[in-house]
């Protein structure tokens, strides 16, 4: 791979693009089990409830906090892409990408406080 292609990989905007991709992929992997879990309601309220009791384990809660972060960061990263593509160019994209990550971390931290 040419050094030109590798050089930009330290850029905050490359990291933002990669984070958008990885978060989207992680959410796509998460969705089928998420839907299957909710589908347990078809077997009755008690069946869904027993799954929800299982999900109260600390490790599952930590995973949920990660998912809230990925969900928020994918939303904010996606909004940044839509704005770039549909409106006049604005400077400060690195700062906006950093702000998106920081806001996502704050939302995830707020969720952490809520579930623990």
């Amino acid at each position, binding site marked *: 791979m040419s050094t030109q292609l590798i050089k930009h990989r330290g850029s905050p905007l490359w990291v933002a693009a990669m984070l958008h*991709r990885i978060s*989207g*992929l992680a*959410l*796509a992997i998460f*969705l*089928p089990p*998420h*839907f*299957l*879990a*909710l*589908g*347990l*309601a*078809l077997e*009755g*309220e*008690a069946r*869904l*409830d027993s799954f*929800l009791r299982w*999900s*109260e384990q600390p490790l599952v809660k930590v995973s949920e906090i990660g998912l*809230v972060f990925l*969900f*928020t960061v994918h*939303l904010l990263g*996606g*909004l940044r*892409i*839509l704005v770039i*593509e549909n409106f006049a160019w604005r400077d400060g994209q690195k700062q906006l990408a950093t702000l998106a990550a920081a806001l996502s971390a704050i*939302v995830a931290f*707020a*969720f952490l406080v*809520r*579930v623990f």
Partner: protein
Amino acid sequence: MNVRLYLWQRATAVVMAPLVVAHIAVIFYATRHGLSAADILARTHGSVAWAAFYGVFVLAVSIHASIGVRNILNEWLPLNERRIDACAVFFGLVLATLGLRAVAAVVLS
């Protein structure tokens, strides 16, 4: 990614943006006293509004995610385009089926 898929991905992103914000708000609201099936089903059972909200959400995310997965497979794996298209369509159908089944489960149960 061709223009048609690009437009579908951006259009579904625009549709989902407010839905994601609302879903995050619901996540925070629903976990205020811990999750319980009774609380979830009390909110959603028989609700046309929640069925429409999550029905649209599921369809939009099925399209959006399958196009995204297609792009990633296309760029990261040495597979031919037909195989990648087949994987993406299959994944989108799985998401739509499981998602609509989940919506039916919480609205009709």
